[in-house]
């Protein structure tokens, strides 16, 4: 215990001395973006060389859209509509609404999670599992949603009779609490 305290003290000392920007790096250009990347809108837009283009092109190409982190009202409306259809048991209509939502916000993990829910209701368990996994891939950092997805996956595996896989999924859900 003593040695641990000494090391701790040393660390605190060195922390005070050294410039500890080491562990909060934004990744270098090569190698892709990190989780909380800076979006282009925060930097000055780059101007692109003007080429002889058709009338429709202005020669200046605007920087890409800033990803919207709050849900658009459009998506909220569609999710609501899907919910209604689902409650009435009209699953294929619910799916159609959710797909419209995917077209608008393709990276929104909640929509994918809702898709998984509908598939589960339709007893399409394998599809439900895949969609929930996809939702998880997009939901990096959102523990609540990830946990919800793992529970859905666990349910699906149980209903498929794959108890091992179901237990693994339940554990993953628990570890996210």
């Amino acid at each position: 215990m003593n040695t641990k305290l000494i090391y701790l003290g040393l660390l605190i000392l060195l922390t005070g001395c050294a410039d500890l920007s080491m562990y909060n790096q934004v990744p270098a250009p090569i190698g892709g973006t990190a989780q909380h990347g800076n979006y282009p809108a925060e930097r000055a837009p780059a101007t692109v060389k003007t080429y002889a283009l058709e009338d429709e092109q202005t020669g200046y190409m605007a920087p890409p859209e800033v990803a919207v982190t709050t849900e658009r009202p459009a998506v909220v409306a569609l999710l609501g509509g899907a919910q209604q259809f689902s409650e009435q048991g009209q699953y294929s209509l619910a799916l159609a609404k959710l797909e419209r939502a995917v077209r608008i916000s393709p990276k929104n993990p909640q929509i994918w999670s809702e898709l998984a829910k509908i598939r589960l209701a339709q007893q399409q368990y394998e599809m439900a599992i895949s969609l929930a996994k996809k939702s998880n891939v997009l939901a990096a950092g959102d523990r609540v949603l990830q946990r919800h997805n793992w529970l859905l996956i666990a349910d699906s595996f149980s209903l498929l009779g794959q108890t091992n896989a179901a237990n693994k999924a339940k554990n993953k859900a628990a570890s996210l609490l």
Partner: protein
Amino acid sequence: MAKPRNKPKTTKKVTKPRKGKSQPSRGSFRRLLFSLIAVALVVIAAYSAYLDHVVRNQFEGKRWELAANVYANPVEVYQGLPLSISQLETLLVDLHYRRSSRLASAGTYHRSGNVFNIRTRVFDFFDGREESKDIRIRINSNAVASIKNTRLGTDVPLLRFEPVQVGSFYPSHKEDRILVKISEVPQTLIDGLITIEDRDFYQHYGVSVKSIFRALWANIKAGGVVQGGSTLTQQLVKNFYLSSERSLWRKIKEAMMALILEYHYQKDDILEAYINEVFLGQDGARSINGFGMASVFYFNQPLNALKPHQVALLVGLVKGPSYYDPRRHAKRALKRRDLVLDEMVRMGVLPDQQRDIAKRFSTDISSFKRLSSSRFPAFLDLVKRQLSRDYKEEELSSDGLNIFSTLDYTLQTQTEKIFKKTLQSLNKRYGIEPGKLQGAMVITRREGGEIVAVIGDRNPDFDGFNRALDAVRPVGSLVKPAVYLTALSNPSHYTLTSLIDDSAISLKQQSGELWEPKNYDKKEHGQVPLHAALTHSYNLATVNLGMELKVPRVKRTLEELGVRREIKPYPSLLLGALSLSPIEVAQMYQTLAGDGFFTPLRSIQSVTSNDHRALQGYPLNVRQVVSPSAVYLLNTALQSVMSTGTGRSAYQYLPREYSLAGKTGTTDELRDSWFAGFSGDYLAVVWLGRDDNKPSKLTGASGALQVWSKVMQAISKQAVNLTQPEDVEYIWVDPLGRRANEFCADAVQYPYIKGSAPIEYSPCVGSVGRTLKRAGDWFNDFLNE
């Protein structure tokens, strides 16, 4: 349509003459004769009943046939959607909205400055009805600022316009038809047909003996075939029901059926069927039936837009579509047309003056042979194939289905323009034989795999060989990501910075011959990091790596990614000895763009019945097939291909912030030029090459990539934003792949799957740095205990 009635049967009553037994032979002879006649009549009656059934069945079936309508993906407008004023106006025009300051009816709009007032039309979609609304849309800085329902005074979160109709087809017909109603047919056409083919059409009962003789006489007098002896009804029967076999028996059958047809149906119905059925030309294996289709095929115009000189030419074709083919026998066609015009004047159905004007025209044929009733034949072809895969022909038949496709109308039309133009300029710049450079393009949504645009020909309007679906060509370096993905899926052995050997290799093939691949620049680069080998598309490194991994494993990766075509597991596979069509390549790269989830590409969203009942949805499906973390690593390498590698010229057209990911592909002697890549919102695959497989003089970068970049510049709005998986961490490494920190010169951060990061430290990291690192790790563990 005449009410069906039992055809009165005529039976002859046989009466035996009462004669004495003095002439027995004559009596029995007559008995025999009469009984034979009776039998013959019964047979004729039965046969007539059978023909009657055939005639009515077929006629009803074809007459009431409804076209299946194909719609593009409806435009959905919401606050924040990038949409310029001109784009919205163009959309309204495409949907045939009229300008009306009062918004007099549904389907009108009115713009002042950046504010649109619109009264939308009602439309029944698969998931419900979109009611007609009074809407105000405000556009600011090329995006939708607000959408209000002016009647209710509320905000509208989402507005779905009715979809553009992009095609229609008759599922029971293999070839495209354009069916017209008699009320839409130009009077000149009717007059012309009656004049030339069947003067007594409105008077006879199906067969006209008078016509036959009159026509014979007229033809003798004129020294040529000016009139036909067969009635239009007989010709219809010939086209409709019978094969082209010509015999007396056929003629008799034809006559009987013509009589039956006339008995049951009105003249106008028969004429309409004739106009839609008559054979008017051949293009290779495709037959042109009906004046609606012929109008488009010969003149590239709808039937009701034709002028008398064009109508007359088509009427003249009826007698011999090949003989009078205006494209191959222009002089004959003109002579025939003029004859038709003269006869029409003689009959008094065409004024002199019009005839004189008409005769001044040449054949006036369009150089473009449109074979499709749709503006987007390549896409419609895809829809038909996907439908026939899922529906049996009978289920699809005549029911007027509404097919909601995934086509993005605006995107497709923009892409077509750019594609055509770019091919033309490449043709010129590289001195390729004019007209020989061909190409194809497939564009999908990056998430979800919906196909938004398809181009199958350098001339996108052309309905011929659909290269997007059917040009199966060697993919060259496009296969490489599969090799590297196989490696990265094994993080305990390979990372992005693992060194691989870019040095000469020679392999003995089954034939005994040696295969000695070379790099594009003919050099060997020694030990190179894995990411660099992919970025610069080094052949030697790829083969060395692939042989280490074993070719069958690479084959399996390709299959997991979604390649369904047979893959030969030979070493040459590693450099792209695999032939795929552009859509198959798109399917493969879709899995990479989708974070390792396979999603089958779709061209149809849903199908409703003619009365708008939901019939079938084609919902979104995904299946995880490769590790999302491995795909993440690969995708970062594909981003390097674009930022510093063979794909970098794309950034002459798009801002660097797009962080594009993609791969160039070039085959031996530059026969095929490929590019496959994605931005945040779209994935696109381009192939350029020659149908005769001669060298196209284009590499993947100089050819396909140019097309890709220009199209993406026009359509893409979102950057690639790879979501970093939870088990991937960024680590600083030096150029040799040893662990470093940001203070080291030439150090760069790379992503690693946790547990696979290099352990060996670079000399540039001093002991202090190492100790700090160790302390930091311990501290983290301490907290988590």
